């Protein structure tokens, strides 16, 4: 695939991450402030709250989208940093392959977790 296309995907993934990770950060890390202003649903990290959220389709779907977008954005960014060091062609090929395998592996694992907990709830 052309480098300019990969870069456009990187930017698009960044925009998706901006909104979804922003939402994630507010829900997960500003939960006490949300509670203080009457907009929270309990301590975000509490076991009951976590599993209750995991069983909602909205959170499962957005989690998978965020997972894919963040992995692409992060790994492509890391790849660019490494390629900027003007490595030999062989190293670049190796890095590409490792990042594709790692990215796909993490995406499959993370998606499996999200879907499994969504379908089975508290196992």
């Amino acid at each position, binding site marked *: 695939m052309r480098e300019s296309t990969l870069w456009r995907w990187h*930017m698009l993934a*960044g*925009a998706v*991450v*901006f909104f979804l*990770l*922003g939402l994630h*950060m507010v829900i997960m*890390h*500003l*939960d*006490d*402030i949300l*509670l*203080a202003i009457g907009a929270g649903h309990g301590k975000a*990290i509490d*076991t*009951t709250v*976590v*599993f209750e959220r*995991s069983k909602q389709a909205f959170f499962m779907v957005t989690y998978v989208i965020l*997972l894919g977008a*963040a*992995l692409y954005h*992060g*790994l492509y*960014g*890391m790849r660019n*940093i490494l390629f*900027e*060091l*003007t490595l030999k062609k062989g190293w670049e090929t190796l890095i590409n392959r490792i990042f594709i395998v790692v990215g796909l592996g*993490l995406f499959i*694992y*993370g998606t499996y*977790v999200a879907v*499994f*907990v969504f379908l089975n709830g*508290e*196992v």
Partner: protein
Amino acid sequence: MASTPKNKLGIRGWVCGGRYVVERYAYIIHRISGIGILVYFILHIFVTGSRLGGPEKWHSTMSFFETPLFKFGEYLVFAAFAFHALNGLRLFFNELGFLIGKPARPVFPYKTSIHHQRPWLIVLMILAALFIVVGGLDFYILGE
């Protein structure tokens, strides 16, 4: 096709490649925060994977991370996100040709796009700082 010139400075070029302006330091912090977030994110995927083991497993995993050191690390990630997201927003618009002014002929006295993009950098960094302070309030005062 011309070959890519060798990057002789390597990573050192991030900090000692010449006289840098504030945008260049934002670029360096953007990269460092990006790497930090990526490392945390990969670990986070495995940590949240403990949900597969049920509520007990989740509870015990979370208990393991309930130390001041991990809490501070989490806050650092939060701060890194605030910076990376808001600086990234600026870069996103710059890339699309916004917030940098219109192209013009190089007539003396020369103008640079810095005058257009710097105010945005300042505004976004104030927002990032506010977000980091609000996060600190949640992490260390309300969350205690």
